């Protein structure tokens, strides 16, 4: 049912996504990428993975924020034009995950930039990530 909602919304606008890894183990990243591949295929809804913040509507962020990555994620956020939204994918992006209290790690993404949707999991399945995007779109269309 959520796929139908997504298709409806997509007729109005195709969100372009920038995937940002702030210091992850890669498991969330490969599930994000798997969402693009034939089994899940979000491209049919016009959702495209873009390489540059200038073209992005949604920032999909994975990883526990390391000290080095914090500056970078802030810069990427500033470079992304409004309106912009942030989805934190995975336990690390939400609150540091298993790396909480490690000396290299600051914590979740919302310590650095505002987050609109949290997708829990370690890692969340591609289905869950897509559902997170749907949730964001619902939130946005309701809010206007």
């Amino acid at each position, binding site marked *: 049912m959520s796929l139908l909602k997504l298709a409806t919304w997509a007729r109005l606008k195709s969100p372009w996504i920038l995937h940002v890894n702030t210091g992850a183990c890669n498991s969330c990243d490969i599930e994000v990428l798997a969402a693009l591949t034939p089994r899940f295929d979000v491209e049919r809804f016009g959702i495209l993975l873009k390489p540059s913040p200038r073209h992005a509507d949604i920032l999909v962020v994975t990883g526990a924020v390391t000290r080095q990555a914090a500056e970078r994620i802030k810069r990427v956020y500033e470079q992304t034009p409004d309106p912009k939204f942030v989805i934190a994918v995975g336990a690390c992006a939400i609150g540091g995950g298993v790396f909480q209290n490690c000396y*290299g790690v600051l914590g979740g993404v919302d310590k650095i930039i505002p987050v609109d949707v949290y997708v829990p999991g370690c890692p969340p399945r591609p289905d869950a990530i897509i559902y997170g995007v749907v949730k964001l779109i619902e939130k946005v269309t309701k809010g206007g």
Partner: protein
Amino acid sequence: MVEEYPKLAETLKNELKEALLGYEHIAEKKAFVALVDRGSLIKALELLNKISGGEVHLTSINGADLGEREMELTYFIWLLPQKIRVLVKTRLPKDDLKIQSAVKVMPAAILYEREVHEMLGVVFEGHPRLERLFLPEDWPEGVYPLRRD
């Protein structure tokens, strides 16, 4: 191969003499472990190079602060022709954490020595570039994350 262990033990005993502080073949660990005096560590590595005809693989150099007066370094080595896993260990007193760099004998040591230096404060004399590898630039000097003190 287990059959090669006695020959390896012989060679090390003959060449290193008192610098070879102890050795054993640990079947359960499938490894030949030798403890050498730190001044002869390089000589031991050169020997392994010779025994294997240069067909030697340096897997890793591990440093460990076990909470004692000394720090332990373990060189994990694989001899290709003999198919023996060798662990060469040496101990460094904590108030004098210095040892000769192995880079000339085994070039693969280049990053492992940097890491042991960065994490535990061991100085590898003769290393071409003993700088930070993993820690961020703003990490304070003299603070070694894997030291117990």
